[in-house]
C-alpha cells in the first residue's frame, strides 16, 4: 500500500493516464454494448433488403399517414409549449403567490409519472364517462393532449433559469427611457429568452415524435387517423414485419436527431450573439 502511494506520488502523471484509460474504457465499452450495438443491429436490419425495400417500407401508405400525423401533432405541441411553457416559466420566476412552490414542483410530474399512467390519467378526465362530459378519446385531440402532458416540463425548465439570471436593470433602464411594456418584452426579454425557448421546443419535439406509452391507450390507434409512428412500429413488430418496423424506426430516429442537432446549432448561435 505504502509502496503504491509512493509510486503514485513519484509519477502522478503516469498514474493519471493509466486510470484515465480505465474510465474511458469502461465508459465506451458500456455505451457500445448497451446503446450502440443494438442500434447497429437496427440499422443493419432496416437495410436488409437494400434501398428499394427500405423505400417501400417507409412509403407504405399507412406508414406515411402515421409519420404525417406524428409530425403534424409534434409541430402543434411545439407551438403550444413555446407559448404556454414561456408563460409558466415567467409566472414561476416573476410572480409571487401562495402555492407557487407547489406549482414549481408539479411541473416535473410528467418526468416522474410513468407514461402509461399519464395516458390513463387523461382518459379518466377526457375519456368516455368523464366527469365533465367531454369525450375526446380515440381522436387526434386525445393524442395532442397526451403529447402536451409528457412535454410540459421541457420549455419551462429551459426558460426558467435564463429568466432567473436575466438582468432586471436592462428592463428598468428601458422603462426609464420611455419604453412601454410591449416594447420591453419585444426588444429585451424575448430576444434573451428566444434561444432557450428554441432549445426547449426542440427537446419537446424530439420527445413527442417518439412518444408511445402516453398515447397508446387514449388514441385508439386507428390507422390513417390517430395512429402515430411509434404505435405503427409496435404494430409492425407484433405482426412480424420486423424489417419494415426497422426501416420506419430509422427514419423516426433521423427525425428526432435532426431536432436535437438543431439544439446544438442554436446554442452555438446564441453564444456567438452573447460574445
Amino acid at each position, binding site marked *: 500500500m505504502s509502496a503504491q502511494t509512493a509510486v503514485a506520488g513519484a509519477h502522478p502523471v503516469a498514474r493519471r493516464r493509466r486510470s484515465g484509460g480505465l474510465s474511458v474504457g469502461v465508459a465506451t465499452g458500456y455505451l457500445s454494448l448497451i446503446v450502440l450495438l443494438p442500434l447497429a443491429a437496427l440499422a443493419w436490419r432496416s437495410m436488409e433488403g437494400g434501398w428499394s425495400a427500405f423505400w417501400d417500407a417507409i412509403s407504405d401508405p399507412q406508414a406515411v399517414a402515421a409519420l404525417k400525423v406524428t409530425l403534424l401533432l409534434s409541430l402543434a405541441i411545439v407551438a403550444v409549449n413555446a407559448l404556454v411553457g414561456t408563460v409558466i416559466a415567467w409566472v414561476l420566476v416573476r*410572480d409571487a403567490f401562495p402555492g407557487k412552490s407547489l406549482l414549481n414542483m408539479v411541473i416535473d410530474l410528467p418526468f416522474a409519472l410513468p407514461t402509461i399512467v399519464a395516458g390513463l390519467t387523461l382518459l379518466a378526465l377526457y375519456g368516455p364517462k368523464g366527469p365533465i362530459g367531454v369525450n375526446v378519446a380515440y381522436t387526434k385531440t386525445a393524442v395532442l393532449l397526451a403529447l402536451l402532458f409528457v412535454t410540459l416540463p421541457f420549455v419551462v425548465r429551459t426558460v426558467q433559469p435564463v429568466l432567473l439570471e436575466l438582468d432586471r436593470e436592462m428592463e428598468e433602464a428601458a422603462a426609464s427611457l420611455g419604453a412601454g*411594456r410591449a416594447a420591453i418584452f419585444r426588444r429585451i426579454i424575448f430576444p434573451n429568452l428566444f434561444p432557450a425557448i428554441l432549445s426547449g421546443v426542440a427537446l419537446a419535439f424530439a420527445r413527442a415524435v*417518439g412518444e408511445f406509452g402516453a398515447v397508446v391507450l387514449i388514441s385508439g390507434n386507428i390507422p390513417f387517423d390517430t395512429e402515430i409512428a411509434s404505435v405503427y412500429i409496435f404494430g409492425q413488430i407484433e405482426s412480424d414485419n420486423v424489417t419494415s418496423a426497422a426501416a420506419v424506426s430509422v427514419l423516426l430516429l433521423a427525425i428526432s436527431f435532426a431536432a436535437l442537432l438543431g439544439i446544438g446549432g442554436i446554442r452555438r448561435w446564441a453564444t456567438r450573439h452573447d460574445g
Partner: protein
Amino acid sequence: MARYALRLVAIGYVSALLLVPLGIVFRRAFADGVGPAWDAVTTPAALHAFWLTILIALIAVPANTLFGVVCALAIVRRRFRGHGLVNSAVDLPLALSPVVVGLALLLLYGRGGWFGSWLFDHDVRVIFALPSMVLATIFVSLPFVVREVVPVLREIGDEQEQAASTLGASSWQTFWRITLPAIRWGVAYGIVLTTARALGEFGAVSVVSGRIAGRTETMTTHVGERFEAFDLVGAYAASVVLALAAMATLLLMTMFQPREERTR
C-alpha cells in the same frame, strides 16, 4: 391585470392537464372503497409485476449509477479520441422512441438477431425474459446520472484532485475522499431520475418482454393489460401505486434541488 391573467393561464393549464386528471384517477381507483382497490393490487399477477419491477430497478439503477459516474469522469477529466462521440451517444436514449429501443434489442438478442441464434442454441433466454427487460431499462435510463454529474464536475474543477495526488493520494483515494463527496448531490439527483425512469418504462419493455401475465409483466405493462381487459379498478389502482412513487420522486427532486445547489 396582465399579471393575474398570466398566473391564471399557468395554473389553469397545469391543473387541466396534470392535476385534475390525476385526482380523478385516485377517485376512480377508490370508487368502490379501499377494499376492491387493495384486492386489485394484491392479485398474484399484480404482486409479481410489482416485485419484478423492483428487481429490474435494483439491477438497472446501480449499473447506471456506476457507469454514470465513471462516464462523467471520462467526459470531463479526460481527453481521448472519440470524446465527442461518447458525449453525444450518452444523450441518444433521450432522442429515441422506447419502441425503437425495444426493437433494436429484439434485433440483437431475438431469434434471427445477431446474437439470437447463438443464444437460442445454448438455451439462454434473453428476449421475453428478465435479461432483455433489464437491458431495455438500462438503455432508457442511462443518460440521467451522467447528465447530472457532468456539470457538477465541471464546476468543482480538478485543483483539489491535483492537490491530493501531489500529496501522494492514489487516484482511488482521491476519488473517494475528494471527488465523490463533491459530486454526491448530483449523483443523488441523477439516481432519483434514473429510478423514476426505470420504474416507469413501458414501451421498450412492452416490446422485449412479450407481456406474459405472472411472468414478464412489470407494473406499467400490468396497467396496460388490466385496462385492455376492461378491469378499470385494477388499472386505476395499479396506476395509483405508480403515481405515489412519482410523487415521492418529486419530493426527493425538490429536496436535492441541484440548480440552487450549483448557483450557491
